[in-house]
């Protein structure tokens, strides 16, 4: 019997994380999939604030696939009344809520190895990473693209000049209904991404 020296070093990850990692090992022959997503959170501090909801929809072949979609609402341990007016999610709201772990697992299962798209996506990714950290697994492995940075590139704007999703919607004439719901923002960001992608000829 051979002794495996590395056994103690390679951490024993839960099943969902193994599955998630396995997506990245597969051959990349299939069509590239993007996932636009947005998290509504209790605030902007990724250490103390928590995710309230995640909305995500897939883009393939320059088309938003409406059926390839997920939305979850999270049970809130941290509740900040002051942010309720922005996202409209109450602690005891009528949406069915799940625990953070469940939400993140579903999210990983949804995104698989897709390239993540978001507006100021680093924040959303960090929020997910913090949640993953609480589950004691690694960070998101996906590539990510930020629509704000895409816009900077397109217009040759300096790096420190940021644009809000609202501003870009106005510029590109995207209707802003459902703004500040996770899936509504994800959809709007998706449209914005398609426009920018075309203009940047990616």
């Amino acid at each position: 019997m051979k002794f495996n020296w590395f056994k103690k070093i390679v951490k024993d990850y839960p099943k969902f994380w193994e599955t998630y990692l396995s997506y990245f090992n597969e051959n990349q022959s299939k069509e590239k999939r993007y996932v636009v997503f947005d998290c509504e959170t209790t605030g902007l501090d990724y250490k103390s604030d928590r995710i309230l909801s995640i909305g995500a929809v897939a883009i393939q072949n320059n088309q938003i696939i409406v059926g390839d979609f997920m939305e979850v609402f999270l049970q809130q341990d941290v509740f900040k009344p002051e942010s309720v007016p922005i996202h409209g999610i109450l602690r005891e709201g009528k949406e069915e809520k799940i625990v953070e772990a469940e939400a993140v697992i579903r999210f990983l299962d949804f995104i698989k190895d897709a390239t993540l798209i978001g507006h100021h996506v680093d924040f959303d990714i960090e929020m997910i990473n913090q949640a993953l950290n609480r589950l004691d697994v690694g960070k998101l492995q996906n590539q990510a693209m930020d629509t704000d940075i895409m816009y900077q590139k397109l217009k040759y704007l300096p790096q420190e000049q940021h644009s809000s999703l609202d501003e870009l919607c106005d510029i590109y004439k995207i209707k802003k209904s459902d703004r500040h719901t996770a899936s509504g923002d994800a959809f709007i960001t998706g449209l914005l991404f398609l426009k920018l992608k075309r203009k940047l000829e990616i």
Partner: protein
Amino acid sequence: MKNPIAERITDFLKHYPPFSSLSYLNLLEIAKTCQVIYLEKNQTLFKINDATHSFFYVVASGAVGLSVTSDADDVLIDKCDEGDILGLRPFFAKNNYLMTAKAREESIIYAIPIETFKPYVIANPEVLSFLLESFASNTRNPYDKNNKGKLISENVIYNDQSSEIQYYQPIKYTSNPITASPNDVVKFVAQTMSSSKIGSMIIHENRKPIGIVTDKDLRSKIATGLYSIDVTIDKIMSSPVITVADNLSIAEAQIIMLKNNVSHLCVTKDGSTDSEITGIITEHDIVVAQANNPGVLLKQSKRAQKSADLKEVREKLADLIQHSLDKNVPINHIGSIVGEINLAITKRAIELAIEKIGTPPPAQFAWMNIGSQGRKEQLLLTDQDNAIVFEDVPEDKYDTVKQYFIELAEKVTKTLNKVGYEYCPAEMMASNPLWCKSVSDWQNQFKGWITAPGEKGILMCTIFFDYDFVYGNETLVDAITKTIHEETHENQLFFAYLGADALKNPPPLGFFRQFLVESDGEHKDTFDLKGRALMPLIDAARILSLSKGIKNTANTISRYAKLAELEPQNAPIYEACGDAFAELLKFRTEEGLKSESDGRYLNLSELSKLDKVKLKNDFQPINDIQEVIKNRFQLTYFT
């Protein structure tokens, strides 16, 4: 799982047929399977001969143009706007797309999988019939009463109105032609031919063609005295007549005519001379089919029987304008063609009104178009401006005569309104007693405006000096023209007033060469193309051509051309003005077609950089021409 994105799409779809006939839940199921596509301007969704997609499409925002290719040119067939459906072909046919769908502006499209939608189509007869009707009829949204609908089918039935030359398409011909029997007398046949405005008549025996009589036969056999006018028609008919079957292409028809050296073909049930007559193809049909076009529309308006027929002509005219703009036909050509057709529509409306009244006009009269219609610069549907002048009549008859013409004008303006020309909000119409009067009254009216110019008089001059004879007795209009030129000749005060009026709109650029936009009101921050750019050029052309005594030219471009001829030293300025005017008019027309408005206000943020530069260059001549007016009429101290 709830899917707010699908709900959002459902909320959109439920407003448009055929989706409006489906339940919300069904629609939600459909929406969940859709895909959302973004198209950049000029990006294609599908091309002619592409294998059909497994989706059909709904325009969520933007606009998609459907076009066919002919002679290597794209010919626009239709434009789909918000809520319109396209790409239905895969529902009904296996073969490839027959059209190209290309975004005319940035668009968002919902792609709905045909597989998901099919069960709903089968289960809902309303949806099925909507799709079938639209696919089969090519009449756009069949639910829309005015036939000005939205939905476009892929099933292109080329009739000569909907597209340009389609050489290999079936020819459209006259079915159930007027026929005569061999025993009819020549004189009677000729009378029928002229009253029905046709150039040939098929002679039949038991509904089978045995010969044909054409204008040529009448000319060469009757008019020359070869036969008497009382003989029976079989003596002079050409026989046998060349017969063909239905469904002939334009090319085939033309070849058969050339081969047999004839200008008419008789269509019969099975194509032989021994079967029933079903139609007649003339050389004219071939010309018409190849050049779908102003000719057809002119002919159609001449034959119109009611206002709906005229409305149809005007709608097709809008397509014609769009095609011509797409093909970069010079705007003044488009303008003159459109002017002719507008003229024909008005003429026919007058004729119909006279028929309706039932008694012939009690005096000679002339119908004039004034304002932009008079200048023939009306490419879009704007309001109608017109006037009537009738010959001088004895005083005791004056009132009844005037009453007749006012009634006539009311009927005509009503018809024109139905066709799509709005009533003039300022009542500058012949139905207004003020603008329906005798020659002498008109002459006095103009004298009044010219000799005692005031703000109001000048305003009237700017409208009524641009007139165009439309219908009736032209000498009446000439008489007015003569008076105007006598009165204005060397009339410095009048020109000073008119000149000051022409300068009231300064060139539309600010000190830093930025656009001057509207600062308040409904059109805030848009550019008033008509008021700030077109009117100054129109006004300048009017005063200069009046002062030069140019007659019978109301069109601004023609006026500048005449001016350039008369004053070679200023020709460059005049030519530049003419060019700038054409360009600006094109801007307005394109804007109008795009936004279905009168195109008066341009949204600058929607213009490309190039367009803005073009616009600005067109403003330079306005500066120059206003300088000319200032100096020539010595206005520096006047205002």
